[in-house]
């Protein structure tokens, strides 16, 4: 498939890189300086085009006439929409448009772009805000993905010492769950030594240990039970501190205020702080630097239930989260019963993630992956109904629909020929979720949720 990505910013570059694994991708950038950066980036093996997506000539050079999909993800809504319209005029059947303005995300604009299944409007800030909200609803979770129309949940969490799962073997767990499993453990990421961790598909003799990072596939109705077994059951936060007052923070604060959470925001730019104060009715806005300890103390960082660092500076986000943890620990030490705040850091540089794991920053999110999830989901919607991308371990979660022509139709999971790196987690049959077992037989119209590494995604797709 020929894909054109317009805008080589953080999101555009990542989406281009991910799509390039299976498709022929052209990446357009009009800024000369940025173009030079991506053009000389050896890790990015895509066709780079200097020019604007709103320029028909530049689009031609990018191959718009042969393209099947255009992804316009610059920071300019108008430019994205215009690029999509030009592409549509040139015969591109499907478009993905980044639109931040809520005023433009309406039916009328959608109609300009064609039928509902031929275009997708995305907003990276909103995607991140929604991800944060999901994590906050289950404060102990490190990540959470909803699949199968929301009936199946994949949750990631690190086992605390007092978790009921600790010391339990998977064999024992399997016996407890018989006959109708409500959840299954999809992967275990375990610290091998100080510097190394290993992700493994668990076998029945595996014993769960304190500090294991588990990914559990469960039915939505069993989420509470899984949360309890993972030892991360907590109440919805009552106090939240958002570090950084960008658009994501604003969207997040609006949602939290609606959920009756006390929200405070720290923003460095006085003008932006004023704007936030004007637009966020029930949030307390501070004007200060999140790396300023006095500022964090003034905002009572140690007594917050959750601290979310959302600035564009990864190092500031990480440092502030670490400080929040230490301030919380200090207060917890002073007064019995107090707990340290949960922290969520938005991280733009994926390479920092390993460092964050070893320093216990808490949950992490990336605007790149949040957006990439939406785009990849849309791109693969022809053969996979939904797809999400895990930040850790670079694993993909895929959802496939079984048809009467599927190769796996009528076969048992164990005999269907799935690669070793893949695990069938759950099946949605007649709208009802069930946890997959080796003996489960695929039927027509089943929706199947599979965890695999990105390289295996295509070969798994062929089974359906």
């Amino acid at each position, binding site marked *: 498939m020929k894909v054109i990505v317009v805008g080589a910013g953080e999101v555009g570059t990542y989406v281009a890189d991910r799509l390039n694994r299976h498709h022929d991708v052209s990446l357009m950038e009009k800024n000369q300086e940025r173009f030079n950066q991506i053009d000389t980036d050896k890790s990015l093996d895509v066709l780079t085009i200097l020019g604007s997506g709103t320029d028909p000539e530049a689009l031609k050079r990018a191959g718009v006439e042969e393209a099947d999909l255009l992804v316009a993800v610059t920071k300019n809504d108008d430019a994205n929409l215009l690029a999509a319209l030009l592409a549509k005029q040139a015969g591109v059947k499907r478009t993905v448009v980044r639109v931040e303005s809520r005023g433009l995300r309406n039916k009328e604009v959608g109609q300009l772009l064609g039928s509902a299944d031929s275009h997708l409007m995305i907003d990276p800030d909103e995607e991140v805000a929604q991800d944060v909200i999901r994590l906050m609803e289950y404060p102990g979770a490190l990540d959470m993905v909803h699949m199968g129309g929301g009936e199946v949940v994949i949750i990631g969490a690190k086992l605390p010492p007092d978790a009921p799962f600790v010391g339990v073997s998977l064999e024992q767990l399997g016996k407890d769950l018989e006959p109708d499993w409500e959840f299954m453990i999809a992967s275990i990421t375990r610290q091998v030594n100080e510097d190394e961790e290993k992700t493994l598909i668990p076998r029945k003799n595996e014993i769960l240990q304190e500090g294991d990072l588990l990914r559990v596939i469960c039915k939505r109705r069993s989420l509470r039970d899984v949360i309890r077994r993972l030892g991360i059951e907590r109440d919805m936060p009552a106090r939240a501190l958002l570090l950084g007052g960008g658009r994501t923070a604003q969207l997040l604060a609006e949602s939290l205020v609606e959920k009756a959470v006390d929200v405070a925001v720290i923003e460095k730019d006085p003008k932006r702080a004023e704007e936030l*104060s*004007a637009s966020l009715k029930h949030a307390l806005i501070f004007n200060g630097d999140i790396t300023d300890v006095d500022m964090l103390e003034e*905002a009572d960082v140690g007594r917050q239930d959750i601290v979310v660092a959302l600035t564009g500076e990864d190092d500031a986000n990480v440092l502030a989260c670490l400080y929040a943890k230490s301030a919380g620990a200090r207060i917890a030490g002073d007064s019995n019963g107090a707990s340290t705040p949960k922290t969520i850091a938005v991280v733009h540089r994926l390479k920092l993630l390993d460092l964050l794991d070893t320093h216990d920053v808490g949950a992490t999110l990336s605007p790149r992956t949040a957006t990439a999830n939406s785009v990849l989901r849309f791109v693969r919607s022809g053969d996979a109904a939904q797809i999400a991308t895990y930040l850790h371990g670079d694993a993909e979660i895929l959802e496939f629909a079984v048809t009467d022509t599927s190769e796996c139709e009528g076969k048992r999971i164990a005999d269907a020929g799935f690669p070793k790196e893949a695990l069938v987690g759950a099946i949605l049959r007649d709208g009802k979720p069930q946890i997959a077992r080796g003996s489960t037989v695929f039927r027509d119209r089943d929706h199947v949720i599979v965890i695999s590494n990105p390289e295996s995604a295509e070969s798994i797709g062929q089974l359906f």
Partner: protein
Amino acid sequence: MGYKKLPDWASWTSGLFLGISSGLQVVSFVSIVSGLIGLTGTGSQTPELLVAGTCLGILGTYLFSIIRPPEQLRASDIFAGFFSFAISATLCSTLIFLIAGVTNQFDTALYEASVALTTTALSTLDISRLAPEIEFFRGILQWIGGLVVLILGAAIIPVVGTRSNPSAHIERNEALSLGATRRTAVYSILVIYVPLSIILWFAYSLTGLGIFDGLLLAVSTVSTGGFLPQGNPLANGAVQWIAIAGMCISGTSFVVLWRLARNKVGELKSSLELRIYFLVLISLGLVLFLASGNYSLINLRSSFMVISSAVSTTGFPAVIQGEWLPVFTVLILLITAIGGMAGSASGGFNIRSLIILLRLSMRELVRQLHPRSVVRIRIDDKPLSESTVEHAVVLQFLFISVVVITAVSSSIAGLDLFSAINASIHSTATAGPIRSIEGDLVDPSLWTRPIRVTLIPAMILGWLTIFPVLIAAGEFTSFLKGRLKSFRRQVLKVKERQR
């Protein structure tokens, strides 16, 4: 006198002289119409009113003909215009009162003219001795006064911009819904003000009050002037209920009335100021009724009459049937100082300013805990600019200053402390009548002439929401300073030559 002849200060001067000319013409028109009304009866004062009105009209028209309108409308031009209109109209009305023989004392005539135009219910006139044409003249003056304050408070805002009259500025966005231009805003105000007057006139007339008395009472209600025609019409229960309804409406923002007229009721539900306004009216009315110990329907009506009269700063004299507690006087003094909603014809520093001040106080408390917090003050979910908040604070300070200075002046002139403060607040809020701590209505005609004179500046300042007067005074002072410097330069030049 024109713009081109005096280029360095002509814009301001043009505004000033336009105001003077308008004052002359308005009083002339009211005087002539009053004279003609007199012809329906004995018309004892008609010749004086017609002659004086014609002379003022000719003078005003001549003045208007030689003035070029300012090329651009600055806030100071408009304020100078309103201020000069106020002075001109007051002096012309004073002249009419003197010529018509209402009084032969200049200061008493000036006081009555001020009381009438500023819609302050502190008249010293013996109504029973007034000719109908003078009653009409007096009644229409307050109606004009009410209209002027509405136009000042809302219609000039789109023209003046954001840094003008603070109480008007607070209402800027609201007022913009009245009309995007000065012309449409004035039109919107007239579209409500005139029909409201006519409806009240009709309603009063239906009670058997008579067309003439009904008209006088209607203009008195709609302008919050509080001037009563002869024969104590408020003795009638039906008239009282209509007056209560009329006063409640008059104390409401005209933006609210405009929205109601356009059937935009939904927008009003979120108005905190409107909710507080009616909460104050209803709760204090009930407090007065219940605490006075008389639970008759008549006392219920009287209680609401007293409260609506005080909140809207109309000043219709009303007494309750039960026991009057000293706290009632204090409460009434307090709600009179606050007045009705911003953008209404009522006086006082208005409920909107009070909300801003309360929220400002809360913000300062938050800042004590969190010095780096950024908190915007909001009304009805709309954030206010800092300049609006500053102006509300300044307006409040000026209001208190005027009250204090007037209280000191009137106490020097002979009033006791409580009466001085009471009279000062009522004058600045353009309200009335004044009550003693026992609840008795105080007759202003018993005050000495110096006391009454000390109250005139407060009435005019309160009527024009203080700022236009001070800005015009500031402009005038700058002008005088400029002239003085010019004179000194000339003197220095002459001295230089002599050396």
